[in-house]
């Protein structure tokens, strides 16, 4: 059973299975835990898995009840229960005492570890940080692109042409947005892969561009010419367009006019008429003869010429148009890519996307052993979770490890669910799980390799039933969609989706289809009703989860909830920047950074007053000459007068000082707390100036959310994408009317280029059926649209499988003409599922099962949680606010008195030389030590070479004294700056020298003689006496004047 692939479904206990498999391996051989690499996708998943493994081992080891026991007993028939428990205990102890070897890791952290260990081999900076903020990097790179254009005339030219092109097309001449949008792709691995190999030189690209333009113009001009010709013929024969078949509105001859108006479409009627399949005029038309006359006079020829031209040139024309659309932006990407590289070097960062692509270039199947050596771990078994979210590069990088493992006969365990693959936009490729893996690991595939986890432990019966039925039909319905060609893709992906109910009876599903224009309001109305009704059925608001497809749908919902007084949390309400104290601090920073304009001051004052629950707006009732100042507004003097001082603080300190000054403690809560945490984190990353922090904030920080531990009593609103992996008793999906294909201007990249454009390698096309059908990109279009449809299908699957008890879906009743959105597929299926159908004034609803009160939880998992909650003391609340301005309270070492030592001015020199001589002498035992001590001072930066020389000269002069020579010649036992303990206090003479009972004590002094010096030495002498020395002499040495003074014993 070397290779096992678990195909899971929503709520099928995927993590449970993984944990069980992990346990099986470590119970078999506890030491093996250090040789299992378990890979998950998110930190959260890692944590959960680690936690579950440890908990299970502990429970088993301590003889407690465990869900895993029975299963493990089956898997390990050679062990009895006692043995299992003993092994578990052993494994647990091994793990907690060798925890670094317990490798349940995210795929990103694992590969970044690998990359770091090869930093040198790959010529990467060693201390790089991983930059998540690609937006900022991109923006900076675009800026650089511009700044450099003097030295790159071809880029300048290109940019100018780009702008002109935009002007021609009546679009903004400012092309930044455009470049930015395309530039986002630089962070995607598809791009990396697509653009491998030689790039097209700018000049060649330019040539191609002109060629395409010419081609396009030629095509269009031909039609304009033919159109004009036709119109003038018609005119000459005194016939009107309306006289032709079809009449005024739909005249077949209107086509000619449209060409002259730059609409180059050929209607079906026109084509068939030209081909002679239809008549140009109604048989009863009075103008019949005249029209026939025009036709004979050349109109028919013209039409046929046009048709022939169309038939032979349209595909190429479409190609040209499609390519031209993005060519200007495309042309800059390569350079932008270069700028990004420079950005990385300059900022010493790796972009989050870099790891996988760099590794992919160097890793090679043969490299698993060397990876192991480098990171110091030799893995036997591998486990990979959420495989459907793996990207191509990630898989290619994993492959050497996987193959190594399998080749050595170890176990590889892969878990994933194609149906829950919704991260294609981040690089997740469901085809890996669907087919690729089977190809790549064909040698290891056996009939047992693939297993299906078919149980559902999450949802009650009605939910599971509903989804079983729905997803039986929805994939094939999706495959019928007009833009999809390949049905097997969908069938394969949803094969084996049917789940067995494990959770129990009950559950409820309601699906409503809403008519008419106000459907949104009506849905919100009914949403609120449903929530309130469930509140009466013992549910609490925190049991409820609202899923939306797009962020923009949140607003109407929150408005409804606000009106109905239902508490909620959404991403938007959790934005850090929505909090007043945070805003205020940011304003203060902005003010300090840039000094204010009037608007900023006004805002500052108003926010300041709001913080004091004072909503008077006096500041706004002013004109130019009477503006309210911060002082007028009552800002503390500590702020107004000390701005300069404040700015002199590092960012984190500054923010704390501001908080201390403004005393916002009352208003402070988790928003401000997390803001402080962010400031701390950012200053740790080197953003220490206000400006650099604000720059970061603008590009990224302002998107930051607070996270709250428990949404006590509040409904949660999430996008479907963020709900993956979550569950809730009640799930509401208002606006289940998402479109199947992306709207408007979305782009996709393709390598499927016709031969003559192969050099472009990888190219962005605008996703549009009209523009691409019949062009060379038709296949690429269909492929993309199938992928899009799969995304939509999976999104639907994820959304519908979140509920534990009840699901409420609100959708739009469809209008007949289009089939672009999901409700067109949903409705027919739901109608046939045999639910209860009820027609309401503005909608029709289908319900499944009976609505019921909240069931009391019986299953183990939930119970356990509750018990644990009780065990733990109720969560305490912490309030964060700075208390004290520490720099003023804490002593920093007063080393700066030695500042002089750094100086070379003549005045400074005179004062400091004495200090320095003293300092050097304290390190000297015998004369020969002097050069070494000096050397050391130079190296530590405290002395320049020049100074050292001076010091040496002085010391030399000191040694001209015969006593000195004697003392420093090695005949004495020497103690420099040694502490004497005498009469309960410390004494620290500069130099003590002993020879038998003889003791000499010396203190070095800078300049001027002083009575106090003498007293000090005398104290030392008394101390020596107390220590039992009889022959004691004391000296003062004035280093500046090289003078020696004996001190009498007193």
């Amino acid at each position: 059973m070397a290779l096992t692939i678990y195909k899971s479904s929503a709520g099928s206990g995927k993590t449970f299975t993984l944990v069980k498999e992990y346990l099986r391996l470590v119970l078999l051989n506890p030491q093996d835990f250090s040789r299992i690499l378990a890979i998950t996708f998110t930190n959260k998943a890692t944590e959960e898995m680690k936690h579950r493994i440890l908990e299970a081992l502990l429970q088993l080891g301590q003889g407690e009840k465990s869900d895993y026991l029975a299963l493990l007993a089956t898997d390990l028939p050679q062990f009895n229960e006692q043995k299992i428990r003993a092994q578990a205990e052993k494994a647990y102890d091994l793990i907690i005492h060798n925890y670094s070897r317990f490798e349940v890791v995210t795929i990103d952290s694992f590969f970044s570890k690998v990359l770091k260990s090869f930093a040198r081999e790959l010529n990467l900076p060693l201390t790089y940080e991983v930059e998540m903020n690609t937006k900022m990097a991109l923006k900076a790179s675009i800026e650089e692109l511009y700044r450099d254009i003097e030295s790159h005339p071809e880029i300048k030219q290109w940019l100018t042409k780009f702008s002109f092109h935009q002007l021609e097309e009546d679009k903004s001449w400012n092309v930044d947005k455009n470049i930015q949008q395309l530039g986002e792709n630089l962070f995607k691995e598809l791009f990396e892969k697509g653009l491998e190999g030689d790039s097209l030189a700018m000049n060649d690209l330019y040539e191609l561009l002109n060629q395409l333009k010419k081609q396009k113009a030629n095509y269009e001009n031909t039609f304009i010419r033919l159109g004009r010709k036709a119109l003038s013929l018609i005119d000459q024969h005194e016939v009107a367009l309306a006289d032709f078949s079809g009449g005024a509105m739909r005249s077949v001859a209107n086509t000619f006019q449209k060409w002259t108006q730059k609409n180059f479409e050929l209607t079906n009627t026109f084509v068939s008429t030209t081909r002679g399949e239809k008549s140009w005029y109604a048989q009863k038309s009075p103008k019949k003869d005249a029209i026939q006359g025009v036709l004979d006079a050349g109109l028919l020829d013209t039409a046929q010429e046009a048709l022939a031209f169309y038939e032979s040139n349209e595909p190429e024309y479409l190609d040209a148009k499609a390519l031209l659309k993005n060519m200007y932006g495309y042309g800059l990407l390569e350079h932008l890519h270069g700028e990004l590289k420079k950005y990385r070097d300059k900022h010493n960062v790796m972009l989050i996307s870099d790891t996988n692509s760099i590794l992919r270039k160097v890793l090679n199947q043969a490299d698993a052993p060397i990876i192991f050596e480098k990171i110091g771990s030799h893995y036997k078994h591998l486990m990979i979770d959420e495989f459907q979210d793996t990207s191509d590069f990630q898989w290619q990088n994993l492959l050497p490890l996987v193959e190594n493992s399998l080749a050595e006969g170890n176990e590889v365990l892969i878990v994933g669910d194609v149906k829950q693959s919704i991260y294609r936009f981040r690089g997740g490729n469901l085809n890996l799980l669907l087919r690729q893996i089977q190809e790549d690991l064909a040698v290891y595939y056996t009939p047992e390799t693939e297993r299906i986890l078919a149980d559902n432990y999450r949802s009650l019966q009605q939910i599971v039933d509903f989804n079983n039925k729905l997803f039986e039909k929805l994939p094939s319905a999706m495959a019928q969609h007009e833009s999809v060609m390949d049905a097997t893709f969908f069938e394969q992906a949803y094969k084996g989706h049917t789940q067995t109910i494990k959770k129990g009876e009950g559950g409820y599903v309601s699906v409503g289809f809403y008519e008419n224009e106000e459907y949104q309001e009506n849905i919100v109305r009914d949403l609120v009703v449903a929530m309130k009704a469930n509140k009466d059925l013992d549910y609490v608001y925190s049991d409820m989860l609202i899923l939306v497809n797009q962020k923009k749908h949140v607003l109407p919902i929150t408005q409804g909830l606000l009106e109905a007084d239902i508490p909620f949390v959404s991403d938007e309400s959790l934005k850090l920047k929505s909090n007043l104290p945070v805003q205020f601090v940011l304003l203060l920073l902005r003010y300090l950074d840039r000094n204010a304009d009037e608007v900023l001051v006004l805002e500052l004052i108003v926010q300041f007053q709001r913080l004091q629950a004072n909503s008077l707006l006096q500041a706004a009732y002013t004109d130019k000459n009477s503006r309210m100042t911060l002082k007028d507004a009552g800002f503390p003097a500590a702020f107004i007068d000390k701005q300069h001082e404040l700015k002199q603080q590092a960012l984190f300190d500054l923010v704390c000082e501001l908080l201390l000054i403004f005393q916002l403690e009352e208003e402070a809560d988790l928003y401000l707390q997390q803001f402080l945490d962010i400031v701390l984190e950012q200053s740790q990353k080197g953003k220490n100036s206000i400006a650099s922090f604000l720059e970061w904030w603008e590009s990224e920080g302002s998107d930051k959310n607070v996270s709250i531990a428990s949404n006590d009593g509040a409904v949660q609103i999430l996008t479907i994408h963020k709900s993956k992996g979550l569950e809730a008793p009640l799930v509401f999906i208002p606006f289940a009317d998402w479109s199947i294909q992306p709207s408007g201007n979305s782009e996709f990249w393709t390598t499927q280029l016709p031969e003559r454009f192969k050099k472009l390698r990888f190219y962005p096309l605008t996703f549009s059926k009209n523009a691409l059908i019949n062009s060379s990109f038709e296949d690429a279009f269909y492929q993309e649209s199938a992928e899009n449809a799969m995304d939509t299908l999976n999104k639907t699957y994820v959304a519908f499988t979140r509920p534990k008890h009840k699901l409420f879906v609100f959708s739009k009743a469809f209008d007949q003409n289009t089939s672009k959105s999901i409700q067109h597929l949903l409705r027919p299926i739901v109608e046939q599922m045999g639910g209860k159908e009820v027609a309401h004034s503005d909608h029709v609803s289908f319900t499944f099962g009976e609505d019921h009160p909240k069931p009391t939880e019986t299953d183990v998992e939930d119970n356990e949680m509750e018990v644990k909650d009780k065990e733990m003391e109720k969560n305490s609340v912490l309030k964060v606010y700075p208390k004290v301005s520490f720099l003023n309270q804490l002593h920093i070492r007063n080393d700066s008195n030695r500042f002089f030592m750094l100086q070379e001015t003549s005045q400074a020199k005179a004062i400091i030389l004495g200090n320095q001589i003293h300092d050097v002498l304290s390190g000297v035992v015998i004369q020969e030590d002097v050069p070494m001590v000096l050397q050391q001072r130079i190296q530590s930066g405290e002395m320049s070479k020049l100074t050292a020389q001076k010091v040496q000269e002085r010391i030399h002069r000191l040694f001209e004294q015969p006593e000195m020579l004697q003392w420093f010649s090695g005949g004495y036992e020497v103690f420099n700056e040694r502490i004497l303990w005498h009469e309960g206090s410390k004494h620290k003479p500069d130099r003590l020298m002993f020879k038998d009972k003889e003791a000499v004590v010396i203190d070095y002094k800078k300049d001027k003689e002083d009575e106090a010096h003498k007293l000090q030495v005398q104290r030392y002498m008394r101390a020596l006496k107390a220590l039992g020395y009889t022959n004691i002499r004391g000296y003062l040495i004035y280093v500046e004047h090289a003078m020696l003074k004996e001190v009498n014993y007193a």
Partner: protein
Amino acid sequence: MLETTCTFHQLIVDRLTTADLPDLKKQCFVFPTKRGGLFFQRALLQKHGQHDFMLPTIFSIEEFVQHMTGRHITDELTLLFVLYEMYSARDKSLAFDTFYAWGKIILKDYDEIDRYLADAKQIYDSLQNIKEIDHVFGYNDEFREIIARYRTLTEKQEKTKLLTEFLEIWKQVGLVYGPYKEKLLKQEKAYGGMLYRSLAELLTQDHFEHPFAHYHFCGFNALSKSEEVIFDALVKGKRATLYWDIDQHVLDDPKEEAGDFIREYRAKWPNAIFFDADSLKISKTINVHGVPQNMAQGVLAAERALDYLNQGAEPEETAIVLADEKMLIPLLYLMPMSEHKLNVTMGYPMRSTVVFDFVMSYLDLWSKVTERDGESIFHVYDLRPFLSNAYTSVFFPAVYQSMNELFKSEHRSRVQLSELKEWLNVQALSALFDIKQDWGGIYQAINTYLTSVFYHFKEKEEHPADREFIYFFLKSLNQLNDYLGHHPDLSLKLVKKIIQEHFRSIKIPFEGEPVEGIQVMGFLETRTLDFKNVIVVSANEGKLPAARKTNSYIPFGLRKVFGLPTFEEQDAIYAYHFKRLLQRAEHIDLIYDHTSMGDSKGEESRFILQLKRQLQHLSQVAWQEKTYESHYNPNQLDATITIPKTEKVMQLMGKYVEGNAGNKFLSPTSLTNYITCPLKFYLKNVAGFYEQDEIDEDMDARHIGLVVHKVLENLYQRLNEEVTEADITHFQKRVKKVLNEVMMAQRIIQPNQKLTGRDLVTEQIMEQMIQKVLQNDKKDTPFIIRGIEADDYEHHFQIPYAGKVRLGGSIDRMDEKDGVMRIIDYKTGKAEFLTTKNPTDEEFIDKHFEDPKYKSGFQGLVYALLVSNTLNNPLKVGITSMRNLSQGTKWLKDGANLDQALLSEFESRLEVLVREIYDPEIPFTQTADEERCKYCKFAGLCQRSNDSAF
């Protein structure tokens, strides 16, 4: 101190009798850290303070080794420079900044090789000559297996790129080791390992003149091989006593990685002294706190410490241990220090200081300077961080504002060095620019400037901390300059990187009486110390123990074979320190971050798991786990703003009334502001709040509008004459020139400065736009220009309570064609037009009053109204949008003349609007449509979402 148990240091002191005191001066006590020595000294004096005696020598192990060898450990930077010289001699293209980081690793590898007395030659040869090694040494099976693995690697026929690189680097590292050490020796320099190895060698020889009578090694744990040899030699010579501090049960339990080392030493030196805290018997309370993020950990730590003090604990017995150093500053802010003394054995990070920032921005400036025609030119963009740094404004407080003003008024994106010197007319500041542009010059300038800042602060007795920062900065910089000064070839960019690297880890120490107050320290500072109350912050996996690092060029397997430490040893060392720290503690708080935000994974330290398993069930241990959440203030902010028309407001609005001071018109734009949002109208047009522009680094949209207007005005100067096709052809030829003139006049281009960067493109765009307008006009010839920027038309409304309200504005262009007067407005942006087919006059007008989307049309209609009072021609209103030039000028009502009926209808609607504006009963309110707030500069005030970040 501790009543129940003695600290480690007290236990040592307890072994000394009064009779031993006189001998102490000849003895030497060695501790792992300096701080350990201090605590020992304190314990010694506490016990024997009533006697007179000379203290023994007390060393940290590092000081000990230096003292014994009489040599000094050279600072890392110097060592790196020497190493770099050797490497760059082999590879000329090697840059120091890239070398810096991995040079450190090589250095550490060398250091360890020597500390562990490994045979460097073998290590580095091992990959090359792996076969011999195999039979030369009698390795055990594990090692054999490792070596076999390496053999397979090296013997691979087809080596992957990665493997080749790996082997190549390996070879290099090995080749340099010997010569590097030789070179250091010659220069009397040394890294730590060299001294350890040499002391180990010295002591194993017969003659060694011992400077001390006896040695005491106290509180060690993991010994390097050389330390082991040193200790062993001294123990064997009966000159040393070893003191180990470890729980017996840790020692006895082979599972405990904390005992791994000492278990070995127990066997090796059976006569050593073991202090067994027997901590399982001590009653303890252990609290594990799961806390959200960092700040909250700081709060809790402070809270716990104060609790202990309030319960009567001595501050000295209480330690806050920071497993993550970055927690220091937050903790200090969260600790109410006014009441309690704090002793901090950590430092303030240099790179967080503003002085560091200052120097970086200054260097950045010079590294980006460009040369043109012998002049140095700065980009305003690069100047900004420098000018806004607080240190720049020490002698010139308003430097940023005044420069900002200057740049703005002159539309500057670039500045010449000579100008800058002139402007920064403060001696200290201009001296920063009056320099030779190389490192030497820059270094001098920094030195001089910071010195004067230092004295400036000193004189005013201000900013003691800053003075300290400057001192430390300059001290380190001097050190660096010693090297940099000798390498004039280094580019400034490189110098900057080196400085950045160098200061990355430098800390400015705090100082206080070491054994007074609550003790705050990093985890490793706790070595040999004991506290009654221990609070550990950041007890997260990944921080405690510190994250596993693979920074070495000696791969894991070979490290094992050659007895070099690996991360496993590292973990065991942490385990020892952690367990030891808790041995004698009675109250323990372990605080960890339970969220997965920032650098946290939310995982509690393994040591917590270990403790829990070992202690939780003991009756004398009170074990408690707790989680915390953040305080949450659910108050919702009401951001509604309403401005009632108070007397004051009415008075402000008086400026648009005839006869009042100010002499202002209500402009079409201000009226559309009102339609968009009454509050916006109030703030902008009544109260007149004006947003200062940021410095324009490049020409932006506003410039484009201005310039295009001006150029067209310039070209169409001649009023009232017919403009012909030939005229326009002539204009077209002049565009470039006029454009240039206008940009000069508007100070967008400075004399003798060229456009650069983005402006080059913008210039072309403007030219293209003008050409397009002209092209369109050409098709329209002949026509007669009747007015350009005409602003002499007015319209009045008599409004109750207010008076005669004046409307007016400046009309971009009026021309006459075929007797029709055409009013044309140029728009830089996009203009939307009513698309309804054949609307009635009423619909037409309604739309323009309701939806700000059609503001161009509205404004055009106001102009038409203004003009219609004076002129009798038929009127047309057109808008030329620079965004829609291919369509030419678009005409309201599809180009039909605006008839009188429409205009009077419009007029009466307008009057209603103006009445509303002046109606005292109707306050100025916020628009309900948030879309309209998108680009509004008051969005922050209104708490509306906006494209900008605020």
